[in-house]
């Protein structure tokens, strides 16, 4: 034994120096290094297996090399063999697991590739069906919009609107020549002078309209629960009603349930023809108990609707306030239901759209966190800058870097004097002129007699149409229509206020110019000259809208209808 080990350097080392402190230290150092290297290369489970493997070999061979008693050697050989067998088996298992993970990853990668390919094919198919060709996705978004066939329409429509407006003004002018004052003569160059500005505005508005139309399409296609807030008369109802038409196109099976607390018949057109269920209450005339009872009844009915459904909850600012004050428990239940809808509604295809005037969380009866569960849409107008500034001062929606002024500038650039924030683009933009589906224009306080998008044909109506004339004048695309001087020496707001006053009269009712002027805070506050007002009434009398009761003293008049 010793003779064999003399020629073997390894055996020499083991025989001579194994028990020395120096070599034990060297062994410990080497084993630690090997273990570190193994641990670095392989995970902990593999390290244990390799350690078992090495230990098994050591148990088997070292007793033989050290010439230990045969019985002990044999026993240790069996133990070492068992250890090696177990370690080898475990290493086999580890490698099986690693191979399985690799195969799973490969399968997942193949599935993702397949899914991506399927999705791309679906998009290509959709584009093919919708546009007749597939848009080149490598093009920038702006160019894609330019080549998209649907995007060419709005610009043409705007140009057509402008041409129709000019034609309408021209058609009305000859009939008024006898009654026109010098101020009207002065107005003509101003109108022509507005052209370059208007052109620029039209181009900008067209771009804005394209963007916002795309945004509305996106919102309609991918429904979420959201809150629409805006200053009074900002166009929340108009926006939502237009959006609902798009929603109906994308989701024909969606059950649209409208709860509106204003009860204004003039705005019924917003919902008619698109909503499956319209519940209306005149909130101001009803008692709080009746209002809460009505709300609870509506909500019960809405909850009972099966399948995909959308709840439009209009005038929430007022209704929530009444509700909280009157019956807090059911209001809390509703808030819980709303939270559930916002978190789980998407999978159930249940949505809620709140429409209100304020975005303050406290006024909505919730915390800011819960308020943020619903996606925000905010609309402001330059007709009421004070209210717009108040809304922009809240944290409901972010302001652009330039601040509130930038938003108001967007309003001024908008053809309808409005700016809108939407959660899709997460930015403010000028709001384009949307079709008024209610039939009542709150800007001019007048009823629409024709389809909003169809420009009026002057030759089709031989009789002077005062309302249409005034409406056209008021809808001129100027940066600040409310401040620009208009016909009869009155501004657009003044004319609309007078028109509102007259239209509120019953045909045949007798009233007086003085009475109208005094009853209107707007007219009184803006110090309308009596002569300007008289000129307007002279025009109305000429067009047989009113009749003076005393020709020599034009104070009292009789409303003949026709506005």
């Amino acid at each position, binding site marked *: *034994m010793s003779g*064999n080990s003399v020629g073997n350097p390894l055996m020499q080392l083991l025989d001579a120096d194994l028990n020395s402190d120096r070599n034990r230290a060297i062994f410990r150092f080497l084993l630690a290094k090997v273990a570190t290297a193994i641990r670095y290369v*392989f995970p902990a489970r*593999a390290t244990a*297996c*390799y350690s078992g*493997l090495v230990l*098994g*070999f050591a148990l*088997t061979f070292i007793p*033989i*090399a050290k*010439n230990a008693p*045969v*019985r002990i*050697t*044999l026993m240790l*050989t*069996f133990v*070492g*063999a068992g250890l*090696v*067998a177990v*370690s*080898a*088996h475990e*290493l*086999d298992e*580890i*490698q099986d697991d*690693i191979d399985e993970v690799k195969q799973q990853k490969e399968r997942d990668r193949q599935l993702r590739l397949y899914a991506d390919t399927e999705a791309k094919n679906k998009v290509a198919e959709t584009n093919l069906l919708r546009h007749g060709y597939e848009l080149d996705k490598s093009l920038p978004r702006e160019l894609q919009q330019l080549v998209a066939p649907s995007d060419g329409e709005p610009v043409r429509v705007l140009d057509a609107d402008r041409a129709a407006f000019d034609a309408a003004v021209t058609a009305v002018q000859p009939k008024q020549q006898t009654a026109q004052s010098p101020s009207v003569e002065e107005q003509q160059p101003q109108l022509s002078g507005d052209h370059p500005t208007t052109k620029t505005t039209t181009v900008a508005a067209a771009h804005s309209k394209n963007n916002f139309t795309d945004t509305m399409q996106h919102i309609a296609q991918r429904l979420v629960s959201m809150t629409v807030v805006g200053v009074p008369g900002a166009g929340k109802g108009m926006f939502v009603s237009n959006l609902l038409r798009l929603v109906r196109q994308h989701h024909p099976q969606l059950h649209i349930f409208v709860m509106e607390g204003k009860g204004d018949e003039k705005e019924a057109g917003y919902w008619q023809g698109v909503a499956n269920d319209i519940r209306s209450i005149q909130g101001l005339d009803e008692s709080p108990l009746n209002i809460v009872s009505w709300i609870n009844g509506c909500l019960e009915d809405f909850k009972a609707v099966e399948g995909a459904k959308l709840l439009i909850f209009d005038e929430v600012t007022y209704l929530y306030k009444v509700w909280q004050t009157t019956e807090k428990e059911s209001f809390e239940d509703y808030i819980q239901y709303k939270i559930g809808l916002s978190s789980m509604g998407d999978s159930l295809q249940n949505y809620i759209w709140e429409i209100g005037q304020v975005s303050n969380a406290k006024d909505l009866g919730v915390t800011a966190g819960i308020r943020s569960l619903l996606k925000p849409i905010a609309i402001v107008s330059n007709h009421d800058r004070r209210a717009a500034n108040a809304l922009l001062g809240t944290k409901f929606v972010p302001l652009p870097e330039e601040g509130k002024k930038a938003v108001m500038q967007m309003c001024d650039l908008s053809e309808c004097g409005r700016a809108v924030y939407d959660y899709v683009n997460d930015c403010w933009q000028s709001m384009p002129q949307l079709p008024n589906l209610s039939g009542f224009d709150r800007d001019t306080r007048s009823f629409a007699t024709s389809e909003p998008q169809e420009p009026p044909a002057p030759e089709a109506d031989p009789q002077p149409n005062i309302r249409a004339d005034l409406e056209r004048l008021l809808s001129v695309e100027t940066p600040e229509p409310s401040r620009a001087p208009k016909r009869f020496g009155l501004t657009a707001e003044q004319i609309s206020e007078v028109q509102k006053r007259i239209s509120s009269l019953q045909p045949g009712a007798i009233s007086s110019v003085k009475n109208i002027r005094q009853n209107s805070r707007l007219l009184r506050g803006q110090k309308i000259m009596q002569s300007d007002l008289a000129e307007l009434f002279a025009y109305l009398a000429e067009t047989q809208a009113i009749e003076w009761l005393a020709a020599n003293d034009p104070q009292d008049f009789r409303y003949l209808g026709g506005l």
Partner: protein
Amino acid sequence: MSHRLASKFGYYSLSGFAGSALVQLAVIWPQTWIAVGALGVLTVIYFVFLLVCIKGVLQGKRWAGVLNFNLLGVDAIESTAIVLLFVVGGLWTCLEIL
């Protein structure tokens, strides 16, 4: 390079352990030398047939391709490695103990 290589080395080394254990058992229980001798003869036969087979393959003999040294469910090379480890384990133990 994977754990599979180390695993196979561990499995095949068991053959070497078996050879060593058989020799150690023969030292304790001399009748086992008969088994050692028999296994030695079988090993010699294995290597003879292996050499014949290799020679036949090299000479392009058809019958050589039919021979298949399939031991413990592994192919000829691995089978040879197992036998070699068995022999090395047994011989090394003999040299160390005797």
